[in-house]
């Protein structure tokens, strides 16, 4: 092409296996974050939906929903937070399905990089993305009257718990993203899973008015447990009875989804 010669290769760094895996995951994370920053529309529009939910439930439905011992807006925000980070995790499946479609996964697989880096990098970047979303939703909540009635440390605990939960869910979506034929389908596949879990829960209404069978489900499923924990940590009330089972659920889901996603990644042809 030009007169310039091709560059010689640089000497690779000598790093332990662990440092290498971590370094590769960081490179992939950075690459995903660049895309998120370069396409702010994605973050913008995925914040618009939860903001509309806040407004809808705060001003349209909220007046008709009785939440004993608590303002409805304080009750509502725990549900909104958890719903939002869960839907944020769908990005993991969309991103991986896109990478697969565009042949990037194929390129990564032909490189001598850590096998775990593509999944670790993707779930890490979606974790960071969820932090930004939580900040936005917290500010919106404050604007419509949401108040923390515990203290900053307890609320920070609530944030960490919802991030942990979303992180575990991300790995589940990693499996879905690698199984979907394309990114549109990957996105559609998430709804039948997330909808029943968010609405048949204690996110927007107390479970006391539900029929017994639904109530049994709504009170024991992990999304409700996480929401109840977040609510207790930000508004007060007994915490251990929610937080402990919620942490167990998150850990179990993570222990299940990580090997599942890694297995899927290895056998994706």
């Amino acid at each position, binding site marked *: *092409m030009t007169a*310039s010669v091709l560059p010689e290769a*640089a000497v690779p760094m000598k790093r332990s296996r662990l440092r290498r895996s971590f370094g590769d995951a960081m*490179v992939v994370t950075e690459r995903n974050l660049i895309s998120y920053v370069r396409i702010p529309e994605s973050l913008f529009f995925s914040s618009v939906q939860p903001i509309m939910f806040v407004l809808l439930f705060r001003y349209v439905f909220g007046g008709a929903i009785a939440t004993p011992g608590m303002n409805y807006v304080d009750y509502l925000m725990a549900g909104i937070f958890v719903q939002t980070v869960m839907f944020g995790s769908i990005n993991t499946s969309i991103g991986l399905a896109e990478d697969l479609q565009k042949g990037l996964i194929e390129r*990564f697989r*032909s490189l001598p990089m850590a096998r775990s880096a593509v999944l670790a990098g993707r779930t890490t970047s979606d974790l960071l993305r969820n932090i930004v979303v939580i900040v936005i939703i917290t500010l919106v909540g404050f604007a419509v009257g949401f108040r923390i009635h515990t203290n900053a440390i307890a609320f920070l605990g609530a944030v960490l718990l919802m991030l942990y939960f979303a992180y575990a869910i991300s790995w589940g979506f990693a499996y879905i993203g690698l199984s979907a034929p394309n990114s549109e389908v990957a996105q559609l596949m998430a709804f039948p899973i997330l909808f029943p879990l968010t609405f048949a829960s204690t996110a927007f209404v107390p479970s006391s008015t539900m029929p017994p069978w639904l109530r049994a489900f709504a009170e024991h499923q992990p999304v409700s447990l996480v929401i109840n924990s977040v609510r207790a940590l930000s508004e007060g009330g007994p915490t251990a009875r929610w937080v402990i089972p919620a942490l167990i659920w998150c850990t179990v889901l993570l222990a299940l989804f990580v090997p599942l996603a890694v297995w899927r990644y290895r056998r994706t042809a």
Partner: protein
Amino acid sequence: MSAAIEAHGLVKTFGSDVRALDGVSLSVERGTVLGLLGPNGAGKTTTVRVLTTTLVPDAGSATVNGFDVVREADKVRASIGLAGQYAAVDENLTGRENLRMVGQLFQMSRRDASRIAGELLEHFELTEAADRPSKTYSGGMRRRLDIAAALVHRPPVLFLDEPTTGLDPKSRNAVWSVVEELVADGTTVLLTTQYLEEADRLADRIVVVDRGAVIAEGTSAELKADLGETVLDLGFPDPDTAERAAGLFRGSWPGGVVVDGSLLELSVDSGPSQVMLALRDLESAGIAANRMALREPSLDDVFLSLTGRRAEITEEES
């Protein structure tokens, strides 16, 4: 010293009925170019994927740079470059970011990776576009970026899967120059293509694949020996007339005689005088051709003479 790439009896099936590879064996000497030539669906990409470790074969074995592609996959990966059939660049990243990322994934420090990215961009005439997201690149630029990404660590063995399919002639020439330059530098190249012309120009040896099996192998000259240097196409009003015309030549014509519908194709070895001869024979038999063309033999001709079938070739895609 062993060959740079060696494959024995590779088999790969997808599902229960697609036998993508049905016992492919090939060998590429160090510093040479092998052209893997075949129509769409022949098994070219599947072969490349097995040799670049992204797909594990059901049977057979292969080594690249002396490393087994299944048992020593990581060592193979460290010593090869791959530019796949569809340019695998991240379109939200700039050209520079794409190359730096690949460098870092080859365990280079960020500084080294940035420096090499800059030099590669310069070499591939992408400096001006270096800091634009690669989604703004043309097909040719994207392909160049993809090949540059395969060269970040200067691999001794390079795989190019249909590097010029869908490119305009200018970009195609640019890719060809890159390959020639790399070969002059001692790189071993395995490139797949649907175009005989491309294999002809770049490859030292050509392996023709069809339906997952090697159906011919040799230098371009050997493969074309039966076809002649040139093909004379003669069009007739209908298949019957074409068949009658073919009857004049069968048995006496020194090269291949093929009828395809109302088209008669004659291989021509000895230039204009042979063409004259054909036309004179037609005239004295009172058979009028309504169209005539002289052209280079194509993969289609090689393929037809090997299998008796027409090859299915993808037209432009990008």
